[in-house]
């Protein structure tokens, strides 16, 4: 029972990342009809906004007096943080400690801007092209973004820890009446799950309860008719691309304390997120979220020792097996709409 609950918890945070990325992918596909293979790169860019913010907050100058010697035996001068000069030692250190949450404030405008530039600068030229062309150009773009990040940040993972207050883990076992240490779960993964839930709820609320969202939904259902009503649906779709980029970016920002980011992390999630979209149903936002969590949890169970002992390699193929099973029984995915990609 403990192992069962543990794997469900594990699946939730992985599922949260899948759901957030798949949500953005579906938003873009549902509005613009573009299969965006650069979406994983947006997730990675979000993570590097956090890395950049962390580095900016740790910008320093050398102390005026040496304090020992460096590895070559030359005088070594301690680094003094500018934020501590400006805000005082304690507040400055707190800002450095909270670099990841602070990055959220920066990531939203940055990722919106990146989304706009990507859509206006490149992707809009491929609206009327076949999906294969869209996949090729966005995949190429993802590789370019990846290499640019590697050029500036290197190939090594960069540790970007959570604030001190969220390090460590929570003993769910004790809470649920089990023995101590039976169901341990890191605080930050809990934060990630709730953060993902809030973002997903916010996106749905935005689409459901605002006039802008209503127009976007109408456009997703029948773009031509909305256009005939004199509404500039393209502009709204561009904004939706920006919002999808911001969602992926925020998912990336908050993921940095879970695993140290590297330039390749977007690709690690991209393919799985596409499977999530297909399983959920192309163009279905609730489907993407449902499939994200479902496949995250299934992947977690498939990685347990008993599963890999029973079926070696199951952890690496479970998602694809589920995708095959779902597509055989429900060709449009779990919550797919009729007519999407069926012309």
């Amino acid at each position, binding site marked *: 029972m403990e192992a069962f609950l543990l794997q469900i918890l594990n699946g939730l945070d992985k599922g949260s990342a899948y759901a957030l990325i798949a949500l953005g992918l579906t938003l873009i596909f549902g509005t613009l009809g573009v299969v965006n293979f650069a979406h994983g790169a947006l997730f990675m860019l979000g993570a590097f906004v956090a890395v950049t913010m962390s580095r900016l907050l740790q910008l320093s100058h050398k102390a005026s007096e040496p304090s020992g010697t460096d590895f070559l035996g030359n005088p070594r001068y301690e680094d003094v943080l500018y934020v501590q000069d400006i805000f005082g030692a304690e507040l400055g250190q707190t800002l450095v400690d909270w670099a990841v949450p602070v990055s959220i404030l920066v990531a939203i405008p940055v990722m919106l801007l990146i989304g706009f530039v990507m859509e206006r600068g490149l992707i809009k030229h491929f609206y009327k092209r076949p999906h294969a062309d869209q996949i090729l150009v966005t995949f190429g773009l993802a590789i370019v973004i990846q290499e640019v990040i590697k050029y500036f940040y290197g190939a090594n993972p960069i540790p970007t820890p959570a604030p001190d207050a969220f390090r460590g883990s929570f003993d769910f076992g004790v809470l649920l009446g089990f023995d101590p240490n039976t169901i341990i779960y890191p605080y930050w993964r809990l934060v990630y799950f709730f953060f993902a839930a809030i973002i997903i709820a916010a996106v749905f609320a935005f689409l459901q309860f605002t006039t802008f969202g209503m127009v976007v939904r109408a456009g997703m259902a029948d773009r031509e008719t909305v256009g005939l009503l004199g509404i500039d649906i393209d502009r709204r779709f561009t904004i939706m691309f920006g919002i999808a980029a911001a969602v992926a970016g925020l998912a990336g920002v908050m993921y940095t304390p*879970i695993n140290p980011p590297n330039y390749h992390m977007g690709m690690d999630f991209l393919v799985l997120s596409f499977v999530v979209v297909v399983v959920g149903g192309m163009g279905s936002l609730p489907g993407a979220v449902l499939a994200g969590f479902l496949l995250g949890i299934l992947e977690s169970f498939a990685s347990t020792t008993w599963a890999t002992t029973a079926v070696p390699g199951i952890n690496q193929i479970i998602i694809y097996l589920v995708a095959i099973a779902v597509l055989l029984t429900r060709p449009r995915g779990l919550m797919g709409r009729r007519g999407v990609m069926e012309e």
Partner: protein
Amino acid sequence: MTRSHFTRRGVMKTGAATGAGLTLPTIFTGASRAQEQGFTNAPTGDTVTLGFNVPQTGPYADEGADELRAFELAVEHLNGEGDGGMLQTFSSKELDGSGIMGKRVEFVTGDTQTKSDAARAAAQSMIQKDGAVMISGGSSSGVAVAVQGLCQDAGVIFMSGLTHSNDTTGKDKKANGFRHFFNAYMSAAAMAPVLESLYGTDRKAYHLTADYTWGWTQQESIAAATEALGWETVENVLTPLAATDFSSYIAPVLNSGADVLVLNHYGGNMVNSLTNAVQFGLKQAQANGKDFQIVVPLYSELMARGAGENIAGIPGSQNWDWKLENERGSRYTGTNAFVQSFGQKYGFPPSQAAHTCYAQTLLYADAVTRAGSFNPCAVVEALEDFEFDGLGNGPTLYRAADHQCFKDVVVVRGKENPDNEFDLVEIVEVTPTEAVTYEPDHPMFAGGELGECNPGA
């Protein structure tokens, strides 16, 4: 020390017998030409080309970049530029800064991408198109085994870079291949006494193991060494090399009855699995009435940097450390010369990957000079059972039976309060060579034959 002049002597005899009536300069010209023919990429001009095959893209690109820095430095020193680095401390005094056998050293580079097929293609291109007479570098055992096989077939020498699997000089050993870096068996043998003194003999270990050649041999080695102490191996779980999140593998550890987690992971795998283990509270946990412990058998400075403060207190092993001479004395002469040289040029201390690549380049150049020939078979003979010192690891033997270097192994632990970003580990112990030496037919290295050296064309 083995010194081989057979080629030169043979050539001189042949030259003397057939050269009656010829002028003296003609004898030398003819001899030189004959001596340097009959093997792949025999250098004919006044330069010789070496091929450095390192990961320039992909997840180990930073380690590859550090290897490349070391290669460039070695070439600089061989050509008489810079401060000479470890040429000044190397026990063999054959190298005088005039290149290799008077030929200026040039180099070409390839990108292994840490993929066996890409690494082989890059090595092949350097051999066939650029005329490389030796290939070196790399940051993965899978790649090393693949490129070593290619070099054997092509008839060039392979001086491997960072490769830690027992198989490289075990079941996959080749006559044309040489490894300066230590291996998984040595890591385990060096760590066992340290683990015993740190954590005792009554421990239950849970292994997470990268599912490829290095991971398997690392797990086999450390499990055998710890079981010999009295530890029990509770579970060994193979994890896919492509895994990025290890939470599903880490979460069951505390319920398994284990009180030690052994991470047989390297690179990104190590960074992520260690980070996840710390997140799940394993460093603070208690099990079987003891403090839970984490062990990472193979350390790398670059990976330690990636794992950040999570490595604090975690033991592991290294082939070399840049602080070795300062902390453990003149036995490790050469360390400071290399650190000074590398640090002045690049602004930070070298990694163990950089050190092994630098040492391999010097060892190759020295072997060619002692052999008096670039012929791979002459180089093999010069390197086999070659004993040397002054390259930072203390007295070292290049064993003829398997082409593996035998030297002291450094056991380290993540530093609790590092002084700076380079000072991430503290040296706990340096295990002497005798304690990590094994017989060539040890079961963990069985199954392969060195075979005959191949001079190629």
